């Protein structure tokens, strides 16, 4: 599937292949997405067994979920069959690090604190999911970190670092908050690319898809000839599952899902190490959403970039992401591996959120969701912002804001006084 890459790109790919951890190299050698669909073995992983429907008489078994997938499929880390092959994430994997980042809207006493003391770490070849309700500050966080935030947004503290792995620049660390405009322009797109929230309508309605690719490649890859640019555009488009003959089309001739794929292809055009997707599938249908996610995961496996995936759909993230951070009212309240977060949430908000998604199997019983309504950042309650909706709120929660602290080892953090050791942890938060 990988066609003619220009020299620069081939080199970059080589670097990746040689430095990639074993697990990822293996998936790279594995079949690409469409091929994977055909070579599926008929073995089902145990977790999926209960979902197998009865074969219906009178036709082939329609048991969709009885098909498992080989390595290289969408698997959460702890369930990855090749778990042992994957080295534990070391600092060497880090490509993008956000430390103690705070972002305000406006200045001085009237400022709205949209993000407070957020820490995130993106590692190569891994998907970090950022979940949270509307207005919790997810977009603000990533736009602020990449300094794309518009007026009146202001970064009011923290640091953001990019650990460059481009050939010839290995080990170079870029401090995004100190970078000049020129430096930022150079990094954006070629090292960090962001697919904005309203990306569905971001394509210029009067230019063709081809000229969108052309513009990007022309700006960042001066040495490319017109012909190679066109070849590269065709290749990128094929990579995201759109026929290359659609290059001549205008955006309105494409469906929403296709437009979103074009945006993804554009974001990947310069082989960035960090890809940030802000709700890339929210406006799309479930089927289209799944197609795009399958494609993204396939691309991630093949190209090895680090991905930050923002969505409010936690159940989707659990299937997609390796690690998940949950935001509430401008703060990250819990961070853990995807399956850990699903099986043993520690923060009452995460627990409530997980219980807000009706299950697809088993008995249907009445569920309650989370009482109250999502917070207004302009009037965040004192102490823990979740306190007014929290079933376990204590006196302390009203006066002090809990910090994000490691719980069971480094890999699980939560910001909740229930886990401070002073009180008995409720059963459902101690699983």
């Amino acid at each position, binding site marked *: 599937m990988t066609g003619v890459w220009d020299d620069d790109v081939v080199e970059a790919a080589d670097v990746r292949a040689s430095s990639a951890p074993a697990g990822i190299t293996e998936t790279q050698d594995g079949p690409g997405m469409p091929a994977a669909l055909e070579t599926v073995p008929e073995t089902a992983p145990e977790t*999926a067994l209960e979902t197998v429907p009865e074969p219906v008489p009178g036709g082939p078994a329609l048991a969709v979920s009885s098909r498992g997938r080989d390595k290289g499929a969408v698997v959460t880390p702890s369930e990855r069959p090749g778990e042992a092959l994957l080295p534990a994430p070391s600092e060497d994997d880090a490509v993008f690090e956000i430390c103690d980042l705070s972002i305000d809207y406006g200045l001085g006493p009237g400022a709205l604190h949209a993000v407070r003391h957020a820490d995130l770490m993106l590692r190569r070849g891994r998907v970090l999911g950022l979940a949270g309700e509307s207005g919790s500050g997810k977009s603000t966080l990533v736009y602020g970190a990449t300094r794309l935030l518009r007026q009146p947004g202001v970064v009011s503290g923290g640091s953001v670092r990019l650990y460059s792995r481009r050939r010839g620049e290995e080990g170079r660390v870029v401090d995004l908050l100190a970078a000049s405009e020129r430096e930022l322009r150079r990094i954006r797109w070629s090292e960090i690319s962001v697919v904005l929230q309203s990306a569905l309508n971001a394509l210029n309605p009067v230019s063709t898809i081809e000229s969108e690719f052309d513009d990007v490649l022309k700006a960042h890859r001066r040495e490319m000839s017109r012909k190679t640019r066109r070849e590269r555009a065709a290749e990128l488009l094929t990579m995201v599952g759109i026929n290359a003959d659609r290059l001549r089309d205008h955006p309105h001739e494409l469906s929403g899902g296709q437009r979103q794929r074009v945006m993804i292809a554009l974001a990947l055009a310069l082989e960035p190490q960090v890809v940030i997707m802000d709700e890339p599938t929210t406006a799309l249908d479930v089927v289209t959403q799944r197609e795009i996610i399958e494609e993204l995961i396939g691309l991630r496996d093949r190209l090895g970039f680090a991905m930050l995936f923002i969505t409010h759909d936690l159940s989707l993230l659990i299937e997609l992401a390796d690690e998940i951070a949950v935001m509430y009212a401008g703060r990250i309240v819990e961070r853990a591996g995807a399956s850990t977060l699903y099986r043993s949430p520690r923060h009452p908000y995460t627990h409530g959120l997980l219980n807000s998604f009706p299950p*697809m199997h088993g008995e249907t019983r009445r569920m309650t969701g989370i009482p109250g309504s999502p917070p207004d950042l302009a009037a965040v309650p004192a102490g823990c912002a979740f306190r007014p909706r929290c079933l376990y709120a204590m006196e302390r929660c009203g006066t002090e804001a809990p910090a994000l602290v490691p719980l069971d080892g480094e890999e699980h953090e939560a910001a909740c006084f229930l886990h401070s050791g002073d009180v008995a942890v409720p059963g459902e938060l101690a699983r």
Partner: protein
Amino acid sequence: MTDNASLAPALEARGLTKHFTFRHGLLSRRGRVHAVDDVSLVLAAGTVTAIVGESGSGKSVLARMLARIVMPSAGELYLMGEKVVLGQKGRRQYASEVQLVLQDPFASMNPVHRVRHSLVRPLRIHHTAGPDLEESVKDLLRRVALSPPERFIDKYPHELSGGQLQRVSFARALAVHPHVLLADEPVSMLDVSIRLGVLNLIGDLRDKERLAILYITHDIASARYLADSICVMYAGEIIERAAASTLTDSPAHPYTELLLSAAPDPARGQPTPLPTRGAPPRLVAPPPGCRFHPRCPYVMEICKTTPPPPVTVDAGHEASCWLRLPAGERRPEASSQASLPMVRGGPGLHARKEVASRNEP
């Protein structure tokens, strides 16, 4: 829920069809969007019927026809067993029985009016207020769990959250004392954490007030949670219907299967790969035969030419797919015969549809 009297259809649709015509270019050539084709549906008191389907499958158009906001191109409506004469006349009377709640709570409240106005109007129009108008408004707010009502009655829409607004929308619909409530994606614009609150409200309206409810969504998990039965729509047609858990546990139509495998489901450990790819057809020229055949992984020759009949898979479980008929019975004639036992409209509807689809280029 099982006694027969309560299962009498509050609202029944037979062969509802909506084709939008539009002019095409300078020569004024007319095109037709087959938004909804020959849909029959029964809404019984005290039940929630869910309709799931992709965007553009015609769910909203169907709901608007049921609410008589959109005039059907063909088909009939029966309210409490009585045939409804379609047209402008009697719209108001009909509105007092059948109410529709729209998807976007922020857009469906007039930004310049207070909550009070939104609730007083239906009470006035349909003379459903008690002796004390103010008290009736407060009662409505309490019914949708907005209490104390004093806190909400004088608010403007921008001062309320999405979930609260959607409750006001429900209160507005309930003000007329309807028997049928149609809810067009009532939770899709809401934050995840407050969706269940609104879903539970709908469930309570079914259980406590025995309303006949149509719940439209593309979230199949919420349909399973809330509804008694689920209909799956694809490209303007209902292609499968069954009791909620039957449909999600053992889908009989390849499209339903596709929907299910695409829906996020953390419990399954790892997502199953999609069985097929592709997009829904353009409704201006729907494909001949089964409308799903261009995407169907099991497509057969007959699927490409003849629309499949609704086949009874099990009691109360019906799917329009050729696979559901034994190989020997997959003949074009079956298209009109097999529909006999299941579709209330009788075979005529399907015969007509077949003729129509043959005439299409």
